[in-house]
């Protein structure tokens, strides 16, 4: 992280190792690189000094006793070892080793020893850094850093800089709620942006609603738009299943045929997507041949495939996520299903395609909120990609990563427009924004704060030509249109 001002404030009072360690894995992951380097460096130092002094057995009784005194305390053992051995090693070595030890002790949860100033705008960012969506979450952090850096370079809010407080929600609603509460109560954040699961975002939303803190959710959900979960503090930068599935369906049904088989992960995400496809399909007279529900975490789809083959659908719609999606597509390819039917998916992820390789995904069509390749046509995407590449060693942002950028950026720009971080003023300002930050024109619908935005239809390339990041062709763009969302009335809103 070369050119950004990222204060990660230690949540534990004195940076004590173990005590809060487990709970703060989020911060830990952000600083993991630095810490690993430090640990490795000081380990090698202490190993070297150990080597110089020969085996443990040569220790005198006195030092053995002083060692034992500290035995219950892991970090002090380390320090004790240093002291014990110091008499025989050179002063220079002692100084290097000791200072490495001091840095090690102080570093775990502090990149920057400066405490955050009172005046900074704090954006809490709970995302699942550990767990199955870790790769996506880490990319969200990288993209959010870009938004923070841009805001600060632009002078902030009348000189008030912004900072990002990253926490690990472990993809667990309870954990996310605790972290969010902590961010609000202890760290006094101004905004919350984050979450990477339908269930987690609802848990976060419950807290922010109650504490009247603005929350911008950056993962897919239909429910968050509905009146039961919505509050004026709730914003939704991500697409929702209704919009995504609808866009893919509207593209695929007229082109490939009306007989559709679904292979669906059996949980809320899958059910919402199937509903989205079926509602979009009504206009085309689409017939559902079968909706096969499979449990999450299925390692072998082969028993489900003969039945699909026997039904001879025009389109096979595979609705699942992550590893389930990779395995399902791989095995459907092996069984030769692509020869007789078109395979579509509501969402094709950048990271999933990287992990699965080109063979399994080849010629599969799906939707996405962002793909870096749109930069040929959309200048704001080009600017965002370039900035991201510059900050993150030439990498390009993934789809969910870009949402991290959008989510943070809109709230900060809203604060700038409002000239304040007062939630009520920022809400009014964000509602009024018509913006193009990274993917073309966008705005938040007033009734449910859903971001009205374009959906990109992409097809996975069989053989990438332009390097590792060349995964998809953008074959169509569904322009932002409120008509493609469920109406405010259908969601239970008054207006």
């Amino acid at each position, binding site marked *: 992280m070369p050119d950004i001002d990222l204060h990660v404030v230690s949540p534990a009072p004195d940076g004590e190792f173990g005590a809060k360690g487990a709970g703060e894995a989020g911060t830990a992951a952000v600083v993991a690189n630095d810490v690993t380097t430090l640990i490795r460096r000081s380990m090698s130092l202490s190993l070297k000094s150990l080597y110089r002094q020969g085996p443990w057995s040569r220790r005198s009784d006195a030092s053995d006793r002083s060692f034992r005194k500290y035995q219950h305390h892991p970090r002090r053992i380390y320090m004790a070892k240093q002291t014990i051995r110091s008499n025989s090693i050179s002063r220079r070595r002692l100084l290097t080793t000791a200072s490495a030890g001091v840095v090690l002790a102080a570093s775990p949860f502090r990149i920057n020893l400066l405490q955050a100033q009172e005046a900074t705008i704090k954006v809490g960012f709970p995302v699942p850094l550990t767990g199955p969506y870790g790769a996506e979450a880490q990319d969200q952090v990288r993209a959010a850093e870009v938004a923070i850096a841009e805001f600060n370079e632009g002078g902030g809010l009348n000189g008030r800089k912004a900072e990002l407080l990253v926490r690990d929600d472990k993809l667990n609603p309870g954990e996310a709620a605790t972290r969010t509460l902590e961010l609000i109560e202890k760290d006094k954040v101004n905004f919350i942006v984050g979450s990477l699961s339908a269930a987690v975002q609802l848990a976060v939303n419950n807290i922010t609603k109650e504490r009247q803190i603005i929350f911008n959710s950056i993962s897919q959900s239909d429910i968050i738009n509905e009146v039961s979960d919505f509050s004026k503090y709730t914003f939704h930068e991500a697409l929702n299943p209704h919009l995504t599935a609808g866009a893919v369906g509207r593209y695929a049904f007229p082109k490939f045929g009306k007989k559709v088989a679904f292979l669906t992960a059996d949980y809320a995400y899958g059910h919402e997507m199937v509903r989205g496809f079926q509602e979009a399909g009504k206009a085309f007279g689409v017939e559902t041949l079968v909706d096969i529900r499979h449990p999450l*975490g299925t390692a072998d789809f082969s028993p489900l495939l003969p039945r699909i083959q026997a039904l001879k659908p025009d389109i096979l719609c595979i609705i699942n996520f992550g590893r389930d999606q990779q395995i399902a597509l791989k095995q459907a390819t092996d069984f030769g299903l692509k020869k007789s039917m078109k395979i579509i998916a509501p969402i094709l992820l950048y990271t999933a395609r990287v*992990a699965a390789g080109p063979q399994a995904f080849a010629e599969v069509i799906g939707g996405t909120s962002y793909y870096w390749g749109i930069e040929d046509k959309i200048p704001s995407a080009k600017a965002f990609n370039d900035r991201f590449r510059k900050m993150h060693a030439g990498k390009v942002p993934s789809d969910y990563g870009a949402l991290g950028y959008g989510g943070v950026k809109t709230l900060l720009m809203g604060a700038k427009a409002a000239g304040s971080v007062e939630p009520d003023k920022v809400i009014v300002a964000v509602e009024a924004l018509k913006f193009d930050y990274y993917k073309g024109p966008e705005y938040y619908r007033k009734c449910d704060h859903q971001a009205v935005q374009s959906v990109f239809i992409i097809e996975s390339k069989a053989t990438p030509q332009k390097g590792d990041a060349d995964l998809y062709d953008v074959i169509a763009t569904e322009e932002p249109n409120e008509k493609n969302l469920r109406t405010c009335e259908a969601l239970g809103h008054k207006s």
Partner: protein
Amino acid sequence: MPPLSFDLIALQLFTGLALGAIYVLFAIGLSLIFGMLTVVNFAHGAFYMVGAYVGLFLLSLGGNFWLCLLAVPLIVGTCGLIVERFLIRPLYGRGIDYPLLLTFGLSYVMVELIRIAFGKSGYPFDTPEILQGAVNIGVGYFPLYRLFVIGIAAAVLLGLWLFLERTSFGLIIRAGARDPQIVRVLGVNLSRIWLFVFGIGSGIAGLAGLLAAPLQGVIPEMGATILAEAFVVTVVGGMGSIGGAVIAGLLVGVVVSMTSLFAPEMAKVSIFALMAIVLLIRPQGFFGRAGLMS
């Protein structure tokens, strides 16, 4: 519901048998180690995962898949030898729960080491080119690679059977499982035999992992899911019985496949229902020796 044609049912049955072959290949090592050493090896899934990663690593070095088929079992088997010699051997004679807990912890260590070395997200693993595509087996199309896996599983089983039943070394192994004390009295160094058996068991697990990699890709957690299924297979077949593991593996495959046709939501639970029924009727499994666990 699709029209139930003969072809569909036949293909579904065949798919089940193919799935069963993969279960058998994985469970056989588990069963072998338990039957001969009375060690419940919870690290079996980790050896399976390591097999896939070793294959991935060898391929990245420029090896080919056929070479991996030989090298992976040898390398993973060697890991097994090391684990037996230095971790499991000190625990013999201390009750069944000691090695169980040790291997359980070991599996976490191995998964974590692989995460550190190769990263948390998975890798693609392409099917070798000449085994790609599907062939017509008379009742429908079936992936060539899965046929190949069935062939390998059959070959491994045949080899193992010949080794155990037709060689004098196999005779010692079987005798050691039946009555270790007498075998020792006869002057056989049993700890060497056990070391060897553990090596074979983990080598087969590594081979199974390599064979599974083109079916589902490679990820550090891949051993955890199949371990549950493998335990069902070993328990249904009878702990320690190799023939039982074969029959139970194929049966579990067919049960999963047939449930998938009629009630896909039940597929995952069906194998546990099968296990419960078998245990109610025959607590030691199909061919298990009663009292082995006590």
